[in-house]
């Protein structure tokens, strides 16, 4: 649900403004309103014009944060207690931030250069041994040019052709030495008289082989480069370790002070920005903001304790503020909280509308379970979710995914029992598991009916929620949505009556009511209403995907089971069946997730969801990233 908010106004003597803001920051509950929402005509507080100081603090904070990120300095477990920074402390932190940032940048550049060089040396290392042994032969010849070539494994036939071409053109005045590499390639050292060196390039091009390119900065030839590269190969790890030690030393020496600086400067910056969100006269100031209903007394108490009557907190009547301006904070029961991960993938709902999380918490695992619908696959998913749950941190997104997975597994097992499926028809064959609801393999139309019926229920629920959400702001739209829901239900009644699943006598009244409701909805919502109604009917049919994916899942499981008898050897058949079940399980988890998401985002949310809410960000103290609310 969306937490109800209360708008409050702070009024007080202007001289108390900085202290009042500090008290508000200590309370950490007030989301300050933008100046546009304040009483018009009131000038901003003078300190708000202190843009220069704000820019200085922003630069300082950027330096400190960048230095800490470069050093990968660990954040403290909780916000460090920081006193109000004076000018001297800020100047010290500014110098420290700049100095550590520059040093950290130098260390980072050095590490990157060393890692790049290490990768280059590693790339050439496989040639070293081969060419080093070949180079020994080179010293037997005077005034020769050397060519270093590597033949790919598929070019092994080129060696004989190259040797023949060289013999023909150079009249045997060359030496071609070959050394196989562990990778299947062949290293070649070609030694020719310096006088014929120019013709060799053409010959190598004709033979479609290329010289090993020389790494820059290690000499002009591979003969010069090899010893240098080998030397660097031994030196680089020590240099990397030295850079790492230097970084660790910087973290140990300056990490805690930088963390304190980040917290203090962040808080100071927030306070200065908050002053910009106030308005003042010669003697008084005013600020407005929102806080969760029920917390205003705590803030009022803190202000009263510090300022007595000099700073007052008053509640702004609900009729004086618009829902669109209020910030949004979602708070759901523990059971539904993991499903906020799904809701948060879209922009926040606007204040005053409906948080769909509880509905997602019911329907998402239900749709997933209907599509998976197998005890065996459900238990496998439960095991995976349990492992993920054990390996993740409370409050993290992977933990929420594990909990959503657990709910989906529960529904998968429940519908598996209802459909009598355990790895397809294995349960039936092994221990006589029979469907309690219907057999998905044979009763496809019954499954289709169930899927579409769920679609009707889901869409009608969405339309009703849409009507509730817009009843105050857009009453005509609310009425139109209710009428749409009624028309959908009447169409269902008419179809069932025509198919004689309901008494046939209902057909005529339902049809007449549809004919009456149709012009009414056009009057209420305009000419687009019939188009939207047909879109809604299309959305309901879209729920047929539950049947389609569910049927495909059970059919694939049955095919996997049939492989045991179809492969000749039982062992091979069992292995293929297991592999096929594994593939089906992967598909059975992935596809239902995507399609259940789509049914929610497109079909369900489309009927009522109203995105565009402002995130609730109260003025508070700096907190380590892991403590910040998502």
């Amino acid at each position, binding site marked *: 649900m969306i937490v109800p908010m209360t708008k409050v106004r702070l009024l007080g003597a202007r001289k108390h403004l900085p202290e009042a803001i500090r008290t508000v920051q200590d309370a950490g509950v007030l989301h300050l309103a933008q100046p546009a929402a304040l009483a018009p005509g009131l000038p901003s507080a003078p300190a708000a014009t202190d843009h220069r100081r704000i820019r200085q603090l922003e630069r300082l904070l950027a330096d400190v944060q960048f230095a800490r990120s470069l050093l990968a300095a660990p954040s403290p477990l909780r916000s460090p207690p920081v006193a109000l920074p004076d000018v001297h402390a800020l100047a010290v932190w500014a110098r420290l931030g700049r100095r550590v940032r520059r040093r950290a940048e130098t260390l980072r550049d050095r590490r990157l250069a060393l890692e790049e060089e290490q990768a280059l040396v590693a790339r050439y290392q496989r040639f070293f041994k081969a060419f080093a042994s070949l180079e020994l032969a080179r010293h037997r010849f005077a005034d020769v040019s050397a060519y270093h070539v590597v033949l790919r494994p598929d070019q092994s036939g080129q060696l004989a052709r190259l040797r023949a071409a060289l013999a023909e053109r150079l009249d045997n005045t060359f030496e071609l030495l070959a050394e196989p590499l562990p990778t299947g390639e062949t290293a070649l050292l070609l030694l020719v008289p310096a006088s014929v060196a120019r013709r060799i390039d053409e010959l190598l091009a004709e033979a479609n082989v290329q010289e090993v390119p020389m790494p820059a900065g290690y000499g002009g030839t591979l003969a010069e480069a090899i010893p240098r590269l080998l030397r660097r190969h031994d030196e680089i790890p020590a240099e990397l370790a030295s850079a790492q030690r230097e970084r660790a030393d910087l973290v140990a020496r300056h990490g805690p002070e930088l963390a304190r600086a980040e917290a203090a400067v962040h808080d100071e910056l927030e306070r200065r920005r908050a002053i910009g969100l106030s308005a003042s006269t010669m003697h008084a100031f005013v600020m407005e903001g929102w806080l969760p209903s029920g917390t205003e007394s705590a803030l009022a108490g803190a202000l009263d304790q510090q300022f007595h009557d000099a700073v007052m907190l008053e509640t702004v009547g609900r009729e004086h503020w618009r829902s669109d301006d209020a910030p949004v904070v979602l708070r759901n029961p523990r059971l539904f909280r993991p499903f906020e991960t799904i809701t948060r*993938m*879209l922009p926040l709902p606007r204040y005053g509308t409906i948080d769909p999380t509880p509905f997602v918490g019911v329907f998402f695992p239900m749709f997933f379970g209907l599509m998976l619908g197998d005890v065996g696959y459900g238990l496998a998913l439960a095991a995976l979710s349990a492992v993920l749950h054990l390996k993740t941190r409370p409050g993290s997104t992977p933990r929420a995914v594990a909990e959503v997975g657990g709910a989906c597994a529960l529904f998968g097992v429940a519908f598996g029992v209802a459909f009598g499926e355990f790895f397809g028809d294995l349960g039936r064959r092994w221990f006589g598991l029979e469907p309690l609801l219907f057999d998905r*393999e*044979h*009763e*496809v*139309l019954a499954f*289709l009916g169930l899927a579409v019926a769920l679609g009707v229920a889901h869409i009608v629920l969405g339309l009703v929620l849409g009507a509730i959400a817009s009843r105050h702001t857009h009453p005509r739209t609310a009425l139109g949505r209710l009428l749409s829901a009624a028309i959908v239900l009447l169409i269902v009644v008419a179809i069932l009556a025509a198919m004689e699943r309901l008494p046939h006598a209902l057909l005529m009244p339902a049809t007449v009511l549809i004919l009456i409701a149709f012009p009414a909805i056009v009057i209420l919502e305009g000419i687009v209403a019939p188009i939207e109604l047909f879109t809604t009917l299309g959305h309901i*049919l*879209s729920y*047929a*995907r539950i*049947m*389609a*994916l569910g*049927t495909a899942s059970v059919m694939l499981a049955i095919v996997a089971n049939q492989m045991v008898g179809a492969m000749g050897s039982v062992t091979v058949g069992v292995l293929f069946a297991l592999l096929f079940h594994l593939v089906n399980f992967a598909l059975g988890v992935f596809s239902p997730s*995507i*399609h259940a*998401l*789509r049914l929610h*985002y*497109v079909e369900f949310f489309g009927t009522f969801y109203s995105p565009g809410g402002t995130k609730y960000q109260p003025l508070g103290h700096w907190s380590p990233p892991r403590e910040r609310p998502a």
Partner: protein
Amino acid sequence: MESFWVALSAALAVAIPALATAWAQSRIGPAAAASLAEKPELSTTAIIMIAIPETMVILGFVVAVIIMLRGGGGAG
């Protein structure tokens, strides 16, 4: 002979929308991937965009099942 036409109709009811879905997704997929490279926060929109054309083949599958059941070519 009738069962041949029933089977062919059912096959076409799936095959033609499947081709259409494949064509649509072949256009949407690269565009979504390119968008995600620049704006990872668009992942939800990308998922929705990629999943939207699948409605065609799913409804095709439903029609094929109905053809098979009404035409007597399948279990039911």
